[in-house]
């Protein structure tokens, strides 16, 4: 079933629901508003949000606010209630609060500032794992995080990421060899460290190569969600992901070697973005492959 088919079915179901209630058919922008309302509900309950519909009206969010307030819910007419029902599947029953969870574990309740400290540690961990970081505004220098971060450092030092496999070492050495080989054969002998300066020649060819790798990376990263696999199959997948990451890095390196001119500012960002994205996606695919092997 295509996305278009799925949307058509959802649309028909909503129309049927409205008809059963004796309501008028749905207006063009009503579903967008309903989705916006669901997103608002997600936000207010701290759930992940993939995207806020750009067309959603302010009224949709105001409607969500009223619903969450509770007291005004009775003022909703049947039409709004039907629309709310259409998006209710996206809004499961609220999960337990932190205090509920801690109580279940027999732990002390949250203390003042602890939730903020936890957000800071989450931010630090995002950075450590190379994942999408929380907004920097959530950082607070005076929050009590030292103990947790010391624990994080100990745990990370003993994590699988702290080990360099032979296969990975071989891939990394190719980058070093390319770099020092260029240095030793160059007329001036100046080393261009791997990320200190970025060459500009051959950008078009390099960008094409990277975009091709990006396409492969997307295909790899869109594997089904992790499920247990036979060990041998999972290892093959992991090896493939490792090789793909190595290919991406080699392609990027080739794109960057060969010029002394370094793009900076917006031009540099524009040039580097596809390289970073390709590498990020390849690394994510490796993470997924590793998870499937576990």
């Amino acid at each position: 079933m295509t996305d278009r088919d799925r949307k058509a079915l959802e649309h028909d179901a909503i129309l049927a629901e409205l008809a059963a209630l004796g309501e008028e058919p749905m207006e063009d922008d009503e579903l967008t508003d309903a989705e916006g309302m669901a997103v608002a509900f997600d936000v207010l309950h701290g759930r992940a949000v993939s995207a806020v519909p750009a067309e959603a009206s302010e009224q949709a969010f105001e409607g969500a606010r009223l619903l969450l307030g509770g007291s005004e819910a009775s003022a909703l007419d049947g039409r709004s209630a039907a629309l709310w029902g259409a998006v209710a599947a996206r809004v499961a029953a609220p999960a337990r609060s932190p205090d509920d969870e801690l109580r279940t574990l027999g732990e002390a309740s949250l203390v003042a500032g602890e939730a903020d400290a936890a957000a800071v540690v989450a931010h630090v961990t995002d950075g450590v794992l190379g994942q999408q970081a929380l907004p920097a505004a959530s950082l607070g220098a005076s929050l009590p995080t030292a103990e947790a971060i010391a624990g994080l450092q100990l745990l990370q030092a003993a994590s699988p990421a702290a080990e360099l496999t032979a296969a990975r070492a071989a891939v990394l050495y190719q980058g070093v060899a390319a770099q020092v080989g260029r240095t030793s054969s160059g007329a001036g002998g100046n080393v261009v460290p791997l990320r200190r300066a970025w060459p500009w020649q051959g950008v078009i060819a390099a960008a094409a190569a990277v975009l091709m790798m990006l396409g492969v990376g997307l295909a790899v990263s869109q594997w089904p969600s992790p499920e247990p696999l036979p060990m041998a199959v999972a290892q093959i997948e992991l090896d493939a992901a490792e090789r793909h990451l190595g290919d991406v890095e080699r392609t990027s390196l080739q794109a960057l070697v060969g010029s002394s001119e370094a793009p900076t500012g917006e031009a540099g960002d524009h040039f580097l973005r596809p390289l970073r994205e390709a590498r990020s996606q390849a690394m994510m695919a490796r993470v997924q492959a590793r998870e499937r092997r576990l």
Partner: protein
Amino acid sequence: MTDESHSRISLEQERELVERLKRGDSGALEGLWHAYAEVLYSAVIFPLLPARDRAEEVLQNTFVKAFERIGSFTWQSHGIYPWLKTVARNLAMDMHRKDQRLDRFCKGYGQHVEVIEVEFGAAGRPDRVLVEHERVSGLKARVREVLQSEDLNARYREAIELRLYHEIDREECARRMDVKVGTFDVLFHRALKRFQKLYHDRFGDDE
């Protein structure tokens, strides 16, 4: 890379590789890479810079820098490893200070790392490769012992393993543990604190 690979290179062989490097033979770098890349990564760089992509980048730049600066290295009886280690540590700390992406979280981790670096420096860290390996192996064994301890709540253990060892993002961790993201953050924070306390209670200030 195995421990065996580290014992394959003798001081004489190492000295010969260094001499070749000094003569501009970049191929000699591979021997040093095989001997020291893994231990530099796991014992020196990653503990300071526990972001895999950046740690790998520092490792590569350590050897590029070594090749670039080999002329300033004077052979010592304990070989080139202490010098490589200094180069790696300096590059890792430079990365903390200069990298804009890391700067977003170095307020937390970086400050902590700078403190322990000073403490390690004052204590005089071992420079011999096998000692470094033993140190890392010992740390891993102690961490495993605490992680598997019954004193650590099973939910805390799950939060740590999902987030750090399976490298799963917060949203997915929260979904798997059937809690909200904010609740997961609190659980993970508590888990780290409890782990740190248990580790400290059992092993004192051992790294």
